[in-house]
């Protein structure tokens, strides 16, 4: 994330309650005087303790760190550092659904203690220790009975609309979040959703009727009658959103990668040997952050995560990421984060001044990257010259474990089946020559029972 003056983070500017800033590599949150009363209620009501205990809110400590903008300052807090920030357009269906339900669960707990969420941005949720966690301590305000929920529109745009589109149209439609920084416009969602969704009470009201109402009152100042908008009404609204979201499903069907490991020409012994090599090489370097580039369902990511490293397992296929995420939930894994990412078009910097959402590389570098069975997809399917592949990997991490898959491998043959082989330099020697421009090769080993080869390399100083 880029910084502006006083170390203030560029994504942290909308809410006048406070902002994030970094000083000597430590992340702080300044709380402004305007937010003092709400903050006191959050802490004194027991809501903070309750949410932190449930893993729904990021813990923080109050510090003596001087504020970045002292005139407005009330307090400075130091939130727990999140090892890797991810964005909703990188989440699988289940992850976005969990983030939505966590937001509603926080809202219900807050209402019981006289507070309410004043925003409901999907970007305020991060996966911490395998759980969707609110990272914005300043999202709460004192609830005044009779007032509606200011963040209802934002919740529908950030969570309900993309989930409904993923469930009822196509799972790839969460990519709309990359275009619309404040969530999917409801008129767009309403026009894309199939007619049958009008027979679902939640989708009919919260999306279709909601979009109509927005159209009808667009740009008009209204003084809505809030008679009857009591706490029961608020609870009814939250429960309805909850039920609607719980009712959305997506079955990760047979995609390109769904049956990947059963369709490869791996023998069991090659598979095991590859796992052993990765485990041993990762253990030697004790990385804090590992990126698995092309991690599929996370089989090899788990070898890295076993060393205690926070491991981000990226894959292009939403079905593989969904499967990986379900495993994380099933086994309560705390150090593995599956994410959807297209390596040939990684997440860009987005938002105001290109600085609200960081690109993939701005969120790095990792200490170690895994690039297993991926080089042929980049070099052959996507025509990236090997030197440029090496250059990208060197930007991703200091250490690299990379697998070279030769042309004789059936997976490469499959890629070449429908096209002319214009890759004369795609050989083991060509690969090593290209990568040695950017890396020093420390170790190499053939993967037993296969024609593939693993390398451990370190990026040369730039």
């Amino acid at each position: 994330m880029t910084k502006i003056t006083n170390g203030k983070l560029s994504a942290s500017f909308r809410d006048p309650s406070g902002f994030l800033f970094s000083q000597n590599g430590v992340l702080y949150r300044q709380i402004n005087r305007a937010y003092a009363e709400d903050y006191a209620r959050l802490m004194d009501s027991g809501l903070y303790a309750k949410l932190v205990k449930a893993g729904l809110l990021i813990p923080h400590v109050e510090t003596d760190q001087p504020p970045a903008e002292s005139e407005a300052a009330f307090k400075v807090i130091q939130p727990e550092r999140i090892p890797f920030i991810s964005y909703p357009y990188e989440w699988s269906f289940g992850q976005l659904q969990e983030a939505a339900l966590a937001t509603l669960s926080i809202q219900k707990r807050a209402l019981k203690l006289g507070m309410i969420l004043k925003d409901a941005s999907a970007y305020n949720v991060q996966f911490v220790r395998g759980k969707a966690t609110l990272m914005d301590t300043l999202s709460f305000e004192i609830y005044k009975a009779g007032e509606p929920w200011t963040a209802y529109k934002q919740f529908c745009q950030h969570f309900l609309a993309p989930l409904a589109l993923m469930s009822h149209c196509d799972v790839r439609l969460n990519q709309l979040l990359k275009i619309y920084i404040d969530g999917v416009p409801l008129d767009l969602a309403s026009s894309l959703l199939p007619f049958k969704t009008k027979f679902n009470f939640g989708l009919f009201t919260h999306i279709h009727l909601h979009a109509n109402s927005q159209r009808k009152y667009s740009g008009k100042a209204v003084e809505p009658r809030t008679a009857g908008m009591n706490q029961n009404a608020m609870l009814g609204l939250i429960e309805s959103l909850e039920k609607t979201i719980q009712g959305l499903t997506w079955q990760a069907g047979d995609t390109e990668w769904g049956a990947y490991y059963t369709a490869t020409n791996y023998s069991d012994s090659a598979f095991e040997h590859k796992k052993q090599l990765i485990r041993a090489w990762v253990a030697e370097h004790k990385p804090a952050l590992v990126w698995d580039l092309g991690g599929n369902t996370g089989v090899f990511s788990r070898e890295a995560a076993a060393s205690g490293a926070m491991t981000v397992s990226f894959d292009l296929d939403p079905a593989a990421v969904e499967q990986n995420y379900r495993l994380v939930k099933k086994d309560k894994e705390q150090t593995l984060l599956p994410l959807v990412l297209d390596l040939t078009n990684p997440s860009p910097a987005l938002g105001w001044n290109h600085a609200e959402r960081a690109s993939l590389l701005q969120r790095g570098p990792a200490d170690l990257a895994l690039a297993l069975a991926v080089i042929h997809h980049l070099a052959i399917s996507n025509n990236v010259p090997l030197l440029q592949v090496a250059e990208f990997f060197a930007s991703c991490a200091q250490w690299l474990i990379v697998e070279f898959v030769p042309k004789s491998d059936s997976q490469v043959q499959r890629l070449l089946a429908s096209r002319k082989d214009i890759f004369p330099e795609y050989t083991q020697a060509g690969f090593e020559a290209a990568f040695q421009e950017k890396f020093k090769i420390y170790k190499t080993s053939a993967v037993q029972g296969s024609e593939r080869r693993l390398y451990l390399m370190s990026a040369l100083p730039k």
Partner: protein
Amino acid sequence: MHFSPSPYLDPGSGSLIIQIAIAVLLGLGVAFRSSWGKIKGWFGVKATKEDRGADDEDN
């Protein structure tokens, strides 16, 4: 009743109107559910999970 919106998010006129309409309707259901729970309580029937709400958030 006058509504003073939070300082920084625009709740949207159309969004507010539809929200209040849906919430007031659903609020009747919540009110009925909790009264029903109380009535059952007078007759010694323990409130069910449904009477208290979809899930107990204090778990």
